Each structure stands twice: as C-alpha cells, then as structure tokens.
C-alpha cells in the first residue's frame, strides 16, 4: 500500500499544505499535480500590482524555485488529474497514467463563471483567474483604449482601477442596482461608486449584458436595456464556481462545495480538501461556508496537512478579506450575511476613510473597514468573541476604537 500523499491542484492551499505537511512531521513522499504551467502563485496581485506591471512573476510566485524539490515533493505542472479511483486508491491523469495514493488532498480551487451570450468567444473578451489571463489583458493597455468591465465585484473594480490609471477609458456594467451588492451594505457600494466616478471610471448599474459584437474581435457590448458600448477589450468578472466535479464523480459528498468537517476531512477518511473548493463548518457563525479567500486557503491548507499527518487542528476562524483600489484599502473581517443593523463610523459621503459595523441582533458579525486598520483589527477580535456592541458608541468617533470593546 502506498504511503504517498497526492495533492490535486497547485494553488495557494496546496503550497501551504506542502509546507505544513513537513512542519507536522510527515516524512513520506508527496506528489503535487497542477494543470497550470506554473508553480503555485498568489492570485490577489493579478488584479492589483501585477496587473499594473508594478511587480513581476518572481514576486507573485509563492515559493522559491527549489522549494518543492528540497521538500521532497514530486511536481507535475501542466498536468490535469481526470479521475479519482477510490477503490483502487489511485488517481488518473489526462494521459491515462495511474498514481497510487495513501492519502489525498483536493486543492482544486475554483474557476471563473463564464458568460453565455452571443459573441462570448470573440477575441478581446477576457476573464481573470490566471497569470496568462493577465498577459492577455495587458496587451490591450494602450492609452485611449476602451475597456468594458462586465461585473462590479471586487475583481472587476480592481481591474477598472488599474486600467483607468493606465489612461484607458473604462466602463463597468453591473446587473444589480449597485456594485459589490453580494457582499456589502449599500453605504459601501455607493462610496465605491463615488470614488470610481472621481477617478474617471464610468459605472452603470442595472445593466444586463446581452451580447458582444465585432467582426474578428470584440468591438462593442450590447445590453438587454438597449445600450451599446463601443470597446477594444472586455474583462468579465461575474463570479466563480468551485471545482468540485472530480470529487463528485468519485462519489464524495458535494454540496455548495466539497463537503468537509472542521478537520478538512471529506466523506472519505483518506481524502481531505482545502481552499476555495470546500464547503466547511464555521463554529463562529454556526453554519457551513464556502469562501473565496487567501486566508481560508492558507488556514485550511494548514488544517488539512495536520489531519493528513495524523494530528488534529480544527479550522475555526473569523474569515477576512481585503481589496485594493486606488488609495483605498478595504479590509473585511467576518461575514455580514444576515445582518440586522449596519452602523457607520466616519463619513462615507466625503473623504476616503470610514468603517461599517454589521450587527445581528446586537452581536457584531462583520466590519468593512476602508482605510481604517484599527477598526479592522478590533473587528477580527470582537467578531470571534461574538461581542455585543452599542450602536451609539460605534458611531461616536470621540470614543476610541479600543474602548469599543469595553
């Protein structure tokens, strides 16, 4: 029987798992499969500094080149795993090769949700998930070029912020009546709409993209509302889908993601899963979550590694996330879903610094902090404690952030 640990998917969670498996004392063989041509790298810069050309590949790559070899990991880049055979306990790659495993880690991440409208396959219509996508988008970075961003979520807005700074004419089209509608209160959405307008990005909400037009390449986006937006390039950012098919075909329990417990174990005790692809319990919120964040990928990578190495380190943390646009650093602690009251600290209508505290029946469940590191740091702590806060005190800026706890 093999004692090899095979990791499927070579992203943020996988890189962490490799490091943590060795740190947890696992000395057996490790084999890592990734379908991209690159060793694991960070995705956040792909819509930020890397897209802007401020940093190169060497700064997004997660580990030093010799890390995998020196950690005793056999790597297979550009190799897709196409099947998990749980009876035989082996996996199969695209070219039909079988690799036996003792234990398996699924770190397959997620992929972009594609837009299914006429003209979707025209040249010049791009998504943003991988390094190669960045290269394609950057090829259009010529002053005066016209870009349409489809989707006003974080990634779309980050791309818009980078592109407008490069002298590109940017229009963002969003179906909902405000940007980032899925994750933040209208106060925050409207703040971002104002700042983007100040920076020269046009945002149109309530617009449904009906198709792309052009002869050889995209020349315009047409909307269901009858609008026509001339453009040279389109970037679509309308969300992601977890890569759960491999797990589902192998008969593992899949819900909103690959179902795991707080130790990252799937319904097969020899198989763990970590990162964007999982649906996992969160003790703080008392229900299952699927998260799309680096923090989640790193922490689950650690937990899964511990489990695979025979230790137990439950994963139970306040989720957090950040987004950089212009000079705005948005830091989000917790999840605001289901909030009953949003309390603002600071003034979102002028300036560029404020925070929104989300309460559910008086209990703090999340904070969106824009250029407000203190509020963010406090929120991480207070959310974990399920602190009950007084809305009047939150809104009163004469009361220091540290005193909010008391």
């Amino acid at each position, binding site marked *: 029987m093999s004692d090899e640990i095979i990791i499927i998917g070579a992203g943020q969670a996988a890189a962490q798992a490799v490091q943590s498996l060795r740190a947890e004392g696992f000395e057996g063989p490790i084999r890592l499969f990734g379908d991209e041509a690159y060793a694991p790298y*960070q995705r956040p810069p792909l819509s930020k500094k890397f897209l802007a050309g401020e940093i190169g590949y060497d700064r*997004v790559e997660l580990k030093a080149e010799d890390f995998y070899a020196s950690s005793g990991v056999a790597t297979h880049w550009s190799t897709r795993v196409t099947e998990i055979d749980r009876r035989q306990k082996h996996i199969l790659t695209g070219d039909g090769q079988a690799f036996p495993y003792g234990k398996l880690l699924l770190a397959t991440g997620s992929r972009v949700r594609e837009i299914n409208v006429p003209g979707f396959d025209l040249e010049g219509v791009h998504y943003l998930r991988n390094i190669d996508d960045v290269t394609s988008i950057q090829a259009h970075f010529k002053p005066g070029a016209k870009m349409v961003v489809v989707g006003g979520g974080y990634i779309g807005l980050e791309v818009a912020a980078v592109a407008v700074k490069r002298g590109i004419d940017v229009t963002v089209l969003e179906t909902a009546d405000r940007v980032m509608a899925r994750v933040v209160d209208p106060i925050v959405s409207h703040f971002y709409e104002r700042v983007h307008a100040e920076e020269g990005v046009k945002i149109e909400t309530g617009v449904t993209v009906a198709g792309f037009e052009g002869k050889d390449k995209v020349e315009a986006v047409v909307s269901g509302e009858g609008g026509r937006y001339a453009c040279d390039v389109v970037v679509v950012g309308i969300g992601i889908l977890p890569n759960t098919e491999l797990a589902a075909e192998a008969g593992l329990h899949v819900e909103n993601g690959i179902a795991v417990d707080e130790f990252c174990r799937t319904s097969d005790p020899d198989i763990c899963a970590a990162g964007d692809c999982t649906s996992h319990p969160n003790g703080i919120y008392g229900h299952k979550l699927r998260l799309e964040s680096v923090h989640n990928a790193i922490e689950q990578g650690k937990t899964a590694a511990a489990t695979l190495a025979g230790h137990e380190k439950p994963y139970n943390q306040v989720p957090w996330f950040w987004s950089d646009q212009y000079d705005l650093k948005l830091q989000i602690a917790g999840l605001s879903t289901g909030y009953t009251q949003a309390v603002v600290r600071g003034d979102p209508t002028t300036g560029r610094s404020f925070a929104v505290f989300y309460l559910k029946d008086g209990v703090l469940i999340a904070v969106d902090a824009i250029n407000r590191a203190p509020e963010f740091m406090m929120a991480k702590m207070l959310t974990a404690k399920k602190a009950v806060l007084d809305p009047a005190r939150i809104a009163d800026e004469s009361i220091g952030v540290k005193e909010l706890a008391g």
Partner: protein
Amino acid sequence: MAKITYIEHDGKEHTLDVADGMTLMEAAVKASVPGIDGDCGGACACATCMVFVPEEWWDKIPAKEDMEETMLEFAENAEANSRLSCQIKAAPAIDGMRVSMPKSQH
C-alpha cells in the same frame, strides 16, 4: 543583497540572502521560514508578518507609514520594536540584521 537572520520564538535561527528590493516577508515566505505567515502577500493588510527589530537597526530602515503603524498598534503580541516585515526591503544598509518573531502571528 543583505544577509538577514530570522529567529523563531524558540530561538531557532534561519539566515537568508535577501536580494535588494525584495521584502523580508517575501524572502521568509519563499524559504518557508516558520513563524512568518504573510497571508496578504505584502499588502499591509494582515499583520501576520510581524518581526521584532533591535533598536540599533531602526535608523537603517524606513520609518513606519501610517498603515503599518496602525496595524501594529492593534496587532496581538506587538511591542515597541515590532515591524511588519513586508514593509522592509532588503538593502546593503541592513546586511547582517537579526530579527525575531513573536510566538504566534494570529
């Protein structure tokens, strides 16, 4: 280039050659030095890359910017000599610097 020594909370040392312009966080994460997490990849958003810098090196590294200052003010385990290692770039002036890490970055 600068030789930087990272000292884990239990005293274990790791010495790295850090290329000029590379941050101390990046070098540590790439080399998997335990005790520096760097979750946000240097965006100054997570405070999981904290190190303690002995006073004799303070004038050799740039002063804290506002963001770093406030992140540290609220970070657990922070001391007066805490810095976020993602905000410190290697340069000949800090060759030989020794920094230590807190017990935990969370």
